[in-house]
C-alpha cells in the first residue's frame, strides 16, 4: 500500500478545551445554546485555520470516530425516559451534520465528506482528500471527537485492549488543516498510508507501514501515544507547528477493530 500524494498544509487550527477554558468565547450566544459542543469545537478550529487565508476553501472532509456522541445519548435517553426524542438531538447525532454546518457557515459548496474510522479517521480523511479533483482545493480537513461522562463510566468495562489504549482518557479536541496540492509558503505536507487491517500485532504492522516510507522517516512509538481518537491529529499539528524539520510517521490504531494507519508528516 503506497502513501497518498502529499498535500501541503496551508494553515492549522486547534482547540483543546481542557487547556483553554475560554475556547468558545467567539461563538455567538445563539450558537452556544443551539449547537452541540462538538460542533462548537470543530467550528472554532476551522475558523482559526481559515483566519487570514486568502483563498476560499472549495471542499470539506471531516474525520470523526463517533460524531456527536452526546447528542445520540441525549436523543435515546429522552425516547426511553420521556417517550419522545428531540429532533434537534437527532439531527446533531447524524455523523455528517457537523460537516454540513461547517459548510453552511463558511459557504463551502464543493464536496462534503465525513470519514469515520476510529483513530484512523484522519488518515482516512487524507485518503479521501487525495481523491478530490484539483478544482476542489483548498480543502478543509477537520478531525474532532468529544469526551462525554457516559464513556468515563463505561470505560472500566471495555475490553482490555481498548481500556489500555484509552488510559489517558477520552480527551476531546478539534484539529483543522487547510490543504492544497501546491503551495509556496506551506507549514509542511501530510499524506497517509492505510487504514489497513492490523493483524495479530498492530505495532509491528505500523512499523511495516512506516518502513514503506523510507529510512529518513522517524516513526513515533505506538506504545507512547494514547488511543484518544484525536491523538494523531494533535500529533500532526504539533509536528507542523514545532517547525523542527524532518519526516515523521504518526501512528494510528483503532483498538476496537485493530486497524492501523500512519500519517506521514514532512516539515
Amino acid at each position, binding site marked *: *500500500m*503506497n502513501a497518498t500524494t502529499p498535500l501541503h498544509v496551508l494553515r492549522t487550527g486547534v482547540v483543546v478545551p481542557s487547556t483553554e477554558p475560554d475556547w468558545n468565547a467567539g461563538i455567538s450566544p445563539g450558537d452556544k445554546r443551539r449547537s452541540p459542543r462538538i460542533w462548537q469545537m470543530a467550528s472554532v478550529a476551522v475558523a482559526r485555520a481559515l483566519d487570514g487565508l486568502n483563498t476560499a476553501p472549495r471542499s*470539506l472532509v471531516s474525520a470523526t470516530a*463517533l*460524531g456527536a456522541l452526546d447528542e445520540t*445519548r441525549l*436523543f*435515546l*435517553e429522552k*425516547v*426511553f*425516559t420521556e*417517550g*419522545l*426524542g*428531540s*429532533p434537534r438531538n*437527532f*439531527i446533531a*447525532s*447524524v*455523523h*455528517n*451534520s*457537523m*460537516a*454540513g*454546518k461547517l*459548510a*453552511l457557515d463558511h*459557504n*463551502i*459548496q*464543493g*464536496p*462534503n*465528506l*465525513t*470519514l*469515520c*474510522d*476510529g483513530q*484512523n*479517521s484522519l488518515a*482516512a480523511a487524507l485518503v*479521501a482528500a487525495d*481523491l478530490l*479533483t484539483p478544482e476542489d482545493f483548498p480543502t478543509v480537513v477537520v478531525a474532532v471527537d468529544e469526551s462525554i461522562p457516559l464513556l468515563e*463510566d*463505561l470505560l472500566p*468495562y*471495555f475490553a482490555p485492549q*481498548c481500556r489500555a489504549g484509552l488510559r489517558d482518557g477520552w480527551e476531546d479536541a478539534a484539529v483543522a488543516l487547510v490543504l492544497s496540492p501546491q503551495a509556496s509558503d506551506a507549514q509542511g505536507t501530510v499524506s497517509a498510508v492505510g*487504514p*489497513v*487491517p492490523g493483524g495479530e500485532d498492530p505495532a509491528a504492522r505500523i512499523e511495516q507501514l512506516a518502513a514503506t516510507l523510507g529510512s529518513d522517516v522517524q516513526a513515533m512509538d505506538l506504545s507512547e501515544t494514547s488511543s484518544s481518537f484525536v491523538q494523531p491529529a494533535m500529533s500532526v499539528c504539533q509536528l507542523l507547528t514545532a517547525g523542527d524539520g524532518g519526516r515523521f510517521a504518526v501512528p494510528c490504531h*483503532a483498538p*476496537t*477493530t485493530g*486497524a492501523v494507519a500512519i500519517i506521514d508528516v514532512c516539515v
Partner: protein
Amino acid sequence: MSPVRIVGMGAVCSAGHGVDAGFRAVAEGRDGLTALSVVDAELKTPPLCGQLPRDPNELLESRVPNRSLACSVVAAEEALAPLNNRRGDLSLAVVAATTVAGMTRSEAFYRNYIKDHTVVTHASRELRYHEPTTLTAELARRYGASLSLTVSTACSTGLHALGLGKRLIDKGRCDLVLAVGADALSLLTVRGFASLTLVAPDGCRPFDKRRAGISLGEGAGVMVLASERAAETLGVETLGYVSGWGASADCHHMTAPHPEGRGAAAAMSAALAEAGIEPAQVDYIAAHGTGTPDNDLAEAKALQAVFGTVPPFSSMKRTLGHTLGASGTLEAVLAVQAMREGRIPASGGFEIPDENIALEPSGGETGELTHVVKNAFGFGGNNASVVLSRGAA
C-alpha cells in the same frame, strides 16, 4: 478520469436477497412496505417500512454480530461470486457507507442501562459495534483488503462510497474496490425521523401530489469495481461502468434541501462532467425521490435545471423504503440491472401528478439504456450523484 468497471453486484432488500429479486420488485414498482416489526420502536402505530423478509444472518454459514453487517456480508458474497476466490495478487480496498452500523445493539444496551446500571458489565460486548468503522473493518478482514474507508454522510453516503471507490481505481491506489452501502432499521432512525414528522402515515409516495414523507427501509447494496487490468486478469464479465461522480453541499439548511435544488444540480452536473457526457445522453434517472414534499420538489427543479427536457425518472423508495446508508449503492446496483435488462424501474406509490413538480415519474418503460444518473441527497445539505454506463464512453 476513466470509467471504472463494475464486475460484481449484490443486493439485500425488502424484496429478499439477490439482485434479481430486488430488480423484479422495483421494475414492477411493487409496494414493499409493511408495518415495522424488526425493531421495537415503542410507537403506538408502527410505521410502514421496507423490512427484510428474513433475518440476513440466516443466510450466512456463521452468524455475524449485527444486522447491518449481516446485510453487508450477504450482499458482498453475491457481488464477489463472479471472482470465484481467484483474486491472486490483485489489491482490494473496502469502501463502506453506513449511518447506524451496529447501533441496534447500542440502543438495546442503553435502554437497559438507564433502567439498571449493573448491565454496565456488558458494555464491552454490546457497544463493540457502535463505531461505523467496525462494519468496514470486519469486511476488510474477511476479504483480505489492503485499505478500508468508512464514509458516513447520511442518505447520500452510498454514492460517495461508489465515487471514492471509482477514484481509488482511477488513481491506481488499488485494483479492486468492494463498495458497500448498508444499514439496518434501528430505533434511533425510526424515532429520529418520527421526531422530525417526516414519516408518511400511509407509506411514501414519491413525486405524487399526496406525498407526505418518507418510509424507512433496510438492506445493503454492494458493487465490485475493477481496473481494466484487474477485470482482464480475472476474466470476469463487465456488468457496467461507474463513469462519473459529483458531490456538493447545499449550504442552505441542516435538514431542508435548497428550494431550487442548487446543490443537487451541482452534484449532477459534476458527475456528468466527469463522465464526459451531455445531459441529453442520459436515458434514465434513478431519483433520490424520498417522498417528502420539499425533497421531491427540489429534486424535480434540479432535474429541470440540469436536463431541460428531463429523461424518464423514477424512485424506488416505495418498494425498498429509504434504506439510508444503503440507499445509494443499493439503488445504483438496481439501476445497473435496469440498464442490463433495458427496463426502467416503475415509481411505486405514484398516482396523482403534482402541478408544482410538473414532471411525472416513469411507469416501467423498456428500451436501450446507455447512461443512467443515480442521485442521493442527505442531511446537512449533502449531495451525491453518479453516472452509470452500459459501456465505456
